[in-house]
């Protein structure tokens, strides 16, 4: 422990604590922009300046280690002026487009400008103009709004180990972006959208799908249905002021009806079907001896990661589609048949915590129904945006029920949204199928992991070695261990986002903390809501879901049937990492 004085107050902190964190302990809030504790501390923005007695210049407090006896001043006029000037320097190379910016009112730069009372720029000068990249199906980059904080670099490199971004060029024109400051389409970006969630400004955002959905909703000829992913019910409330993790399933359903959707279904139903098929696949592999490990495939970012970086493992990916795509394929076949609607006229929307699903639904294989199975995806943020536009206040809505037949889900389908959830859901089914016994304690806490966890699970004559990885960085470590034969698994769940889909790239952006672990903790609190709903469910195993049983009885036959194969299974391709020719990005107008 060491003792120092900050603004004449004494504070004790552990060795290695930064001055910024020490100040936080005293309730002194030093502004930051580039810093994201435990993920990113490049000392680049210089907004967190403080004066330490005896040091010749101001220091960035986010990386300055506290020292015994240090005397720090955080609010002298020189410090305040310097911080203000840093913000002015940023603004002098920034488009003033708050009114039309995605991050209006939720932007860290804007907040700083307000906090420091910037009224005018004392330095103005030329501005950079970079090309806008809106070519990828998921992520839009607008480098003109970038503050070079490098948070996206850090999350993509360290958490995902994909490494799309770097600082490129130098001097005034230095910018954070992909190689050649080119389009994401030239790269192996997995479209997880994690960079969006850490970006302090509007430099990164998702592709907008609200316009297409509004248009479909207005079209009298279309039957517009919606599926909502498990994670949405536990996060959309945040946008309306509910505490994080509050379950608002009923209001969410009501809100979607108010928006004009003809049917509101539960994607957790799709998840239950996924479990059926995937459990079946696992049993087959157990019988035929592999290949192991079987990797889950419901996260399109992970799938794309595997296809790009570990193509030798594509046969290990489960052939079963993700719940979104299973739902889409069933909606335009089974549901169309049941409801007597021409599938051509069905417009299938999904509401997901994910930006990668925008990419997944465009994959050319995803046309099992003979049409594009899912037509558009809205992120949680976009969903909230539509509700705001329509003037629908979630808080004031009654609770309503999902429509059937694709609207009832088991608890297993619901926990899909948390990491370990897919695994746990599958295990509940596999256990009973393998052992023929009833599973009493359905909660597999050993696979409820935030980062990386493995376990061995007794299953009759089998000892199932399973693992759960959160983030493709963890997945890479896992695969490398498998390649080096340090580890051996039967079944591995990978989710690209921290804490799983509840921490997805399309979820509400939380800028109240500059601590990465706290951000992840915030996201994982949403999972609590899901586990809570699981506990309340009558049916907690996918194969016990009556709607699922009916689906197989009436339509598919049995898990793994030829029809199930045609509609619900898919294949994968090795991918080239980088495109040899540049794909031009359109200059911003």
């Amino acid at each position, binding site marked *: 422990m060491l003792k120092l004085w900050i603004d004449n107050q004494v504070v004790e902190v552990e060795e290695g604590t930064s001055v910024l964190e020490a100040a936080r302990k005293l309730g002194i809030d030093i502004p930051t922009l580039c810093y994201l504790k435990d993920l990113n501390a490049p000392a680049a923005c210089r907004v967190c300046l403080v004066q330490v007695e005896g040091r010749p210049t101001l220091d960035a407090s986010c990386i300055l280690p506290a020292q015994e006896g240090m005397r720090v001043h955080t609010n002298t006029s020189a410090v305040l002026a310097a911080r203000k000037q840093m913000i002015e320097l940023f603004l002098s190379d920034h488009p003033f487009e708050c009114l039309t910016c995605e991050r209006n009112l939720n932007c860290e730069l804007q907040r700083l400008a307000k906090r420091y009372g910037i009224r005018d720029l004392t330095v103005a000068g030329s501005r950079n103009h970079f090309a806008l990249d809106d070519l990828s199906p998921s992520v839009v980059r607008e480098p003109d709004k970038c503050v070079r904080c490098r948070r996206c670099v850090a999350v993509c490199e360290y958490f995902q180990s994909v490494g799309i971004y770097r600082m*490129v060029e130098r001097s005034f024109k230095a910018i954070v972006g992909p*190689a050649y400051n080119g389009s994401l389409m030239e790269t192996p970006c997995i479209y997880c959208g994690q960079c969006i969630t850490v970006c302090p400004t509007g430099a990164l955002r998702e592709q907008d799908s609200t316009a297409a959905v509004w248009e479909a909703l207005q079209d009298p000829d279309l039957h517009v249905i919606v599926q909502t992913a498990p994670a949405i019910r536990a996060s959309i409330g945040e946008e309306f002021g509910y505490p994080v993790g509050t379950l608002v399933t009923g209001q969410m359903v009501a809100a979607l009806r108010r928006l004009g959707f003809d049917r509101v279904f539960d994607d957790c139903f799709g998840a239950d079907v996924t479990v059926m098929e995937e459990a079946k696949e696992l049993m087959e592999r157990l019988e035929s001896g592999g290949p192991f490990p079987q990797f889950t495939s419901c996260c399109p970012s992970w799938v794309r990661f595997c296809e790009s970086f570990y193509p030798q493992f594509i046969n290990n990916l489960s052939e079963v589609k993700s719940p979104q795509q299973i739902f889409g394929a069933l909606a335009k076949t089974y549901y169309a048949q049941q409801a007597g609607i021409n599938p051509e006229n069905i417009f299938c929307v999904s509401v997901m915590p994910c930006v990668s699903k925008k990419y997944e639904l465009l994959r050319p294989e995803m046309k099992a129904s003979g049409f594009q199975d899912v037509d558009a995806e809205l992120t949680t943020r976009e969903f909230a945006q539509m509700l705001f536009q329509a003037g629908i206040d979630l808080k004031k809505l009654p609770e309503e029920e999902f429509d059937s037949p694709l609207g009832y889900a088991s608890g297993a389908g619901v926990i899909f949204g948390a990491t370990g959830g897919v695994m746990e859901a599958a295990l509940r089914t596999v256990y009973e199928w393998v052992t023929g016994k009833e599973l009493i304690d359905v909660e597999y806490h050993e696979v409820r992991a935030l980062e990386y966890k493995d376990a061995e699970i007794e299953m009759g004559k089998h000892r199932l070695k399973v693992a759960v990885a959160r983030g493709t960085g963890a997945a890479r470590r896992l695969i490398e261990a498998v390649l080096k034969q340090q580890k051996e698994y039967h079944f591995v769940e990978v989710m690209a986002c921290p804490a799983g889909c509840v921490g997805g790239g399309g979820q509400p952006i939380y800028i109240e903390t500059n601590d990465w672990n706290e951000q992840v903790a915030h996201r994982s609190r949403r999972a609590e809501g899901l586990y809570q709903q699981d506990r309340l469910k009558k049916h907690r195993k996918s194969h016990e879901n009556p709607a699922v049983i009916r689906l197989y009885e009436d339509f598919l036959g049995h898990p793994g049937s030829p029809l199930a194969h045609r509609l619900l299974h898919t294949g994968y391709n090795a991918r080239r990492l980088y495109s040899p020719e540049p794909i031009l990005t359109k200059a911003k107008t």
Partner: protein
Amino acid sequence: MTTETSILEGELQARLQPIVERYRGKRGAVIPVLQEIQGVLGYLPRKALIFVATELSIPLAEIYSVVSFYSQFSTVPVGRHRLEVCTGTACYVKGSHQLLEELGEKLNLEPGQVSPDGRLSLATTRCVGACSMAPVLKIGEELYGEFTADKIEQLLGSLARREEADRE
């Protein structure tokens, strides 16, 4: 396994493969690898960067961030003779910016450009350590001190003669 290796035509790959092999597994190898490749190709084409990225399992963005940072690296072809005018302080004080301008006019090239026949390119460099003969023109490893634009014809002549001799 990756499809990337085929990104290079056979001959090019034959030239670059040994370079990356020599550095495979070595720490801090990116810059020397790029320096050697530029030594072979004269510049760093996109395909070569992708080749290095995939061979050494380094993100392309990392490679490009390095390439775009150091002024030694060029992503576009340069002329067979690269005329570099020193714009270091000593040379600047002795009028190297005028020299640059005049050379540009005489050769009809802007700094950074290559002549259409690919023979000459004009560039600037920062101090080659021959400040006492400022202003300095550098071509390859040769330095020409106290250089003035009117000496250029003569110099080009001798370059041409040397090329001639090399061909024989």
